[in-house]
């Protein structure tokens, strides 16, 4: 057997190395647009994203021109919405409304996270704490936050506190249940490894459970901040002098559809920005979790 192997090795060496042509290029099968689970390159993804956005704006513009001229006022073109946006910022101090809205989101979301994330983690770790809170919290989760508006208006009046409280109520119960799931989903052997290494409960909690669950918790927060925006507009429509929602509501009273749409576009853009910030932060905060590029 070893003899024949030697023979084949020597025959390889005997090949004249100079006039050997490179093997022909391999031609892979034609790639289709719909390939299962194929990830496009970054470059291609941005081109596709651009086309997608273009299609959206194209439909919008087409919708505008297909609307009968008499009703076109109610379906303004991109240009009209754009100039409404410019007018808002330049003449109506819209920046103030945008920043007050962002501020409400920020304060309420920070408060909800500061309370909800630790509670969710503790509930995910300890069965007794979970049994203590979960039934009550589940009931709260089924209550529509909007149903608290009358109560909050009676308690706080049309103040910032009322709006921040509404956003807080709208977010915290879902956030807790998501964080609870994120925490229970960590590999149970991580905790057991900690126990057999002699770690104290505090060390297991802060040194093992929290870092293990944090990337998923961060994702839950990113998803919940989108819900925050929903309640913000509700809160500002109901009783506010300022904020993006209030501007839109006032415009509605005068049938200024271009201003309403400018508000929608602004919220969309802010949402997109929030998402980008969260994703970027996750990349920096959890470098171990970053997808490996092959």
């Amino acid at each position, binding site marked *: 057997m070893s003899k024949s192997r030697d023979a084949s090795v020597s025959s390889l060496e005997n090949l004249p190395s100079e006039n050997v042509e490179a093997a022909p290029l391999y031609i892979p099968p034609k790639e289709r647009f719909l390939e299962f689970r194929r990830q496009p390159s970054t470059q291609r993804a941005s081109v596709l994203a651009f086309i997608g956005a273009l299609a959206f704006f194209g439909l919008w513009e087409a919708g505008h021109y297909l609307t009968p001229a008499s009703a076109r006022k109610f379906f303004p073109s991109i240009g009209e919405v754009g100039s409404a946006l410019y007018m808002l910022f330049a003449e109506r101090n819209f920046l103030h409304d945008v920043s007050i809205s962002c501020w409400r989101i920020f304060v309420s979301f920070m408060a909800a996270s500061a309370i909800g994330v630790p509670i969710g983690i503790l509930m995910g770790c300890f069965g007794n704490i979970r049994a203590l809170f979960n039934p009550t919290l589940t009931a709260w989760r089924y209550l529509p936050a909007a149903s608290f508006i009358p109560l909050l208006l009676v308690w706080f009046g049309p103040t910032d506190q009322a709006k921040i409280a509404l956003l807080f109520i709208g977010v915290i119960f879902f956030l807790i249940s998501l964080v609870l799931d994120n925490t229970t989903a960590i590999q149970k*052997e991580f905790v057991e490894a900690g*126990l*057999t*290494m*002699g770690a104290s409960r505090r060390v297991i909690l802060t*040194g093992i459970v929290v870092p293990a669950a944090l990337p998923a918790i961060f994702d839950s927060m990113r998803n919940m901040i989108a819900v925050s925006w929903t309640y913000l507009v509700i809160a500002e429509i109901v009783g506010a002098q300022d904020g993006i929602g209030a501007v839109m509501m006032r415009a509605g009273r005068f049938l200024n559809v271009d201003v309403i749409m400018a508000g929608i576009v602004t919220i969309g853009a802010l949402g997109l920005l929030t998402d980008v910030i969260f994703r970027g932060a996750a990349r920096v905060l959890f*470098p171990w*979790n970053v997808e490996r590029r092959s």
Partner: protein
Amino acid sequence: MNIVAKDFTPVTNVPPLKASRITKEYLGGSFKALDDVSFELHNNQITAFVGPSGCGKTTMLRIIAGLEYPTRGRLEVFGKNVQGPGPDRGMIFQAYTSFPWLTAMQNVEYGMKILKVPAAERRERTMNFLKLVHLEKFADTYPRSLSGGMKQRVALARTLAQNPAIILMDEPFGALDAQVRWEMQELMIELIEREKKTVVAITHDIEEAIYLADRIIFFSRQPGRIKADIPLTFKGGRRIKQKEELLEMPGYAELERQLFAMMREEIK
């Protein structure tokens, strides 16, 4: 090793572990996973738990680790009653438990941090054990970018660096493919030989059990009892690192045949 972390191995003649009449019931007593199991571990021996699936090997190991409690019986480590888990008994799991948020080096250091080993000694031991498991080039790599075998080597180094008296392993190489598994077995023999540890390793692979162990405890199923306690005398008190050498030894084939027959008896 010239540096000394806290040593959990006292100098006594008391066996490192003594399990007396361990019974474990589940489902409110209607199911007995272990029934009146007694055995002692011997110092610096590798014991393999072998037996059909569901015979209670994992249950027994987790009871030793302190992660579960027996319904009846008593468990002593160096003569002291065991209450819950502790760093005197290190555990290596089948699932990869190297922490993904720590680099290989930080993982190995972590166990010693828990034990409050001084920083300088900790660092030296970490580098030492990383070298021993051939991962010194991957010190700053996160487990995500390591292969399964490498992740398991991180876990092995982390456990060894804590210097436990007893090391418990539940099918530690079960998730690895054949060639990596074989490499890990060789590495393990080398490390145990060097570190002088008492080891219990669960495996359902009879060949692996014969290769690694100095002694095989064979469990029978339903209820879980010790069917046979087999010292691997054919090795002549040595550990054979070369698998080829082991296969050629007189007695090997006979033992393997015997174990397969026992296994067949259990699963019929």
